[in-house]
């Protein structure tokens, strides 16, 4: 049976009280009290100490919440905690399903992280300004698609037949990219643009396929 404890007996509440001591200094500064009593340098020092105390309080509150027992402080919290414990006891019986779900969650978290890194990276990529720049990026996508497909085949996520489909389309798009390269060298920008657009279209389809390969 969970018993609630007094507010001031809680480590978290104590840490909170320490953390909000800095607010007192802020209120005093609104009334200019600190400027009348202390020099500018001393005020800066006091602000720094106040920030340190606040940070220490918050860090300790987080530590106490994570590592210390957390008995409820109110009757409603005690009731909710009892309900939670009861639910968790029931959930333990489905631990097999939970562990599988955890694997999926881990993968999804990884995907989210990669997407975040990708978005961060995109902002850092140099924007293409010439045809050569765009053609170079298209070759880069082509290389990435082939490498990713090879790794997926090795990891048994793609079959050999699926790998061959990717290889065929990759070969087609490489021929078109090479043709675009020849055309731009010959000064035929119109043909080069057309070839690059065509290759980009195939590469986009390949990326879609690799993200969701059909069985």
């Amino acid at each position, binding site marked *: 049976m969970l018993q609630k404890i007094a507010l001031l007996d809680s480590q978290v509440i104590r840490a909170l009280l320490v953390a909000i001591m800095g607010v007192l200094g802020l209120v005093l500064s609104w009334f200019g009290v600190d400027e009348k009593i202390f020099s500018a340098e001393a005020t800066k020092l006091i602000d720094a100490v106040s920030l340190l105390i606040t940070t220490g309080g918050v860090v300790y509150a987080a530590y106490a919440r994570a590592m210390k027992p957390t008995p409820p402080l109110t009757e409603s919290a005690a009731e909710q905690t009892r309900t939670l414990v009861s639910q968790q006891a029931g959930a333990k019986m489905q631990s097999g399903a939970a562990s*599988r779900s955890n*694997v*999926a969650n881990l*993968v*999804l978290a*990884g*995907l989210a992280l*990669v*997407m975040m*890194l*990708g978005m961060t*990276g*995109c902002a*850092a*990529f*140099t924007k*293409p*300004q*010439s045809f*050569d*720049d765009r053609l*170079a*990026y298209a*070759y*880069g*996508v*082509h*290389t*990435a*698609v*082939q*490498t*990713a*497909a*090879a*790794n*997926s*085949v*090795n*990891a*048994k*996520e*793609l*079959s*050999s037949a699926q*790998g*061959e489909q*990717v*290889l065929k389309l*990759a*070969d087609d798009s*490489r021929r078109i990219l090479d043709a675009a*390269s020849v055309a731009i060298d010959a000064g035929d920008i119109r043909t080069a643009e057309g070839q690059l657009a065509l290759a980009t279209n195939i590469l986009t389809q390949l*990326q879609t396929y*690799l*993200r*969701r*390969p059909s*069985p």
Partner: protein
Amino acid sequence: MTTNTGAISAAIELTLQLIAKATEISTLVSKAQGEGRTELTPEEWQSIKTADDAARTLLVDAIEAAKEQGR
């Protein structure tokens, strides 16, 4: 669940490769632009195409290995 996890893993793999390759190309493009060039040098093109050929070889080898394992 296994199929979904595999598909997600393949998507992560592709995204990682795209980021890695785009970073490499970005470095070349940035260098060219910094030097006031609108074209890449023959050596730069050679390095891009050599890397692409190496990736193709990886894929071909992976397909052959998968066939040998009956996959």
